């Protein structure tokens, strides 16, 4: 029984150590600015198409569903309110994070995993450079900077999708849709909507790198690391989401 628990406990411990060292490196020289820029480009700019597409369609679908439900109460006019609250508080952050995890946690795990099994990580260490400083910290910083931006884009595109549905399916005036959308948001929602992606970003980058760096067993191991990274990152995103939401709900209801 104890033996069964040993491996997972050890893994969690290793993960904390990686997290600690990656965070400490933020305040330590050398800073690999070129690597941060490169990662911001792959993670941020590279994710824009998928964020645009998923954002637009999720917003549209939500407007469709909401509009239909609100019809029963004769409240179709409030579609914008619901679309905007749900997008900004929940769907935007979570959907964007899950998409970016699918793209980048897996990318990081397979890139670092391949480097691990071909001894390139060892070569980095032998050449006197810290792979955490060179590989993990730039990815962590880049994701933390880019994910909130991507989430804002996703939110906005989602509202656009909702607007199309509101106007063309439920025949709402544009002005009404946008003013309800805008008025629905309070600072609390915005804070929640930006804090979430910031926190999720660490799950995405650190879990991707963690599984990459502990890859064992050749090409197959790389595949396994990639899958595990995405699955674990996704689950952690949802769990963390619940906790953050709970904190905000308690804070506002009291």
């Amino acid at each position, binding site marked *: 029984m104890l033996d069964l628990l040993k491996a997972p406990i050890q893994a969690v411990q290793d993960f904390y150590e990686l997290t600690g060292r990656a965070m400490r490196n933020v305040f330590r020289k050398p800073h690999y600015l070129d690597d941060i820029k490169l990662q911001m480009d792959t993670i941020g700019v590279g994710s824009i198409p998928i964020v645009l597409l998923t954002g637009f369609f999720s917003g549209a679908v939500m407007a469709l569903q909401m509009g239909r439900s609100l019809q029963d109460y004769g409240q179709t006019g409030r579609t914008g309110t619901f679309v905007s609250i749900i997008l900004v508080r929940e769907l935007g952050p979570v959907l964007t994070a899950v998409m970016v995890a699918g793209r980048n946690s897996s990318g990081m795990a397979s890139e670092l995993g391949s480097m691990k099994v071909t*001894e390139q990580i060892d070569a980095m260490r032998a*050449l*006197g*450079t810290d792979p955490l400083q060179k590989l993990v910290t730039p990815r962590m910083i880049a994701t933390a900077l880019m994910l909130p931006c991507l989430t804002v884009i996703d939110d906005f595109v989602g509202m656009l999708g909702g607007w199309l549905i509101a106007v063309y399916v439920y025949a709402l005036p544009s002005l009404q849709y946008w003013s309800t959308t805008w008025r629905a948001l309070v600072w609390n929602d915005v804070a929640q909507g930006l804090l979430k992606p910031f926190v999720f970003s660490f799950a995405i980058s650190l879990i991707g790198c963690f599984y990459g760096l502990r890859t064992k067993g050749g090409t197959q191991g790389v595949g396994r690391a990639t899958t595990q990274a995405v699955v674990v990152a996704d689950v952690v995103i949802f769990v963390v989401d619940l906790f953050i939401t709970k904190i905000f709900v308690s804070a506002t209801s009291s």
Partner: protein
Amino acid sequence: MSAENSVSADTSLLRFENVTVRFDDDETNALDDLSFDVRPGETRILLGAAGSGKTVLLKTAIGLIRPLGGQVRLIGQDIARMPEEKQFDIRRHVGMLFQESALFDSMTIAQNVAYPLLNQRVNRLPRAQMEPAVREALRFVELEHTLEKLPSELSGGMRRRVAIARAVVTKPPLLLYDSPTAGLDPITAHTIMALIIKERDVDNTTALVVTHRYQDGNLVANFRYNPDSGRLDPAGKQGTNTVFMVLREGRLIFEGSQAELEAARDPYIAKFVKRPEEEAAA
């Protein structure tokens, strides 16, 4: 050339003291109570069959593998129990050639060779000096024309030469070569050994050369690089400062000069030592 890197003559560059290495799920030790001392100016030839622990020894020497017991003193500091973050600055005094070259496969040859100059905390060069240094290192291994290629576009022997260039670009006082000639044809193998001898004679570096071919060791022990002709000449009477070691199943079973090695009775050693005169003629 490497004056600022040279370490005073009385300190050893690499010393193993009763080093034992064991992997988690093995019953036997990969390295067993190993002790030796690499003095400045020396070239050590480490012979051993496949699986005898040669690679493990080199990785332990630079802290990539942690020993179960004993001390590993690298450039005067015990690294066996030092946190890795502190080891990075020590490792930049050491150049290592990996058995499989371990080049960064998504970087060009020039970027690979520039990597230590760009990324080490201390060796960082201003960009203006970077390119000449990279070119010089690649000229040293006669691959100046490959600057913009990717490692996958080179042959195995060329990759190994690039890896040597990457190891020597910072002019470290100590070099570790893991099986530099393994899997290569005799001509390329000779080219690589000639590079190792050239590096020794031009930059006065200390080296530990792992190999399973005795003729490699013979070449290092009896030839010198002639800067005028660019070829290897017999070292003559003064000889070279070469020490041989033989590793067998993680244990050091021989340490001494070439003459002592050739005189050894042990059948395992005798199997390594054969036909030195044939290679000399090549």
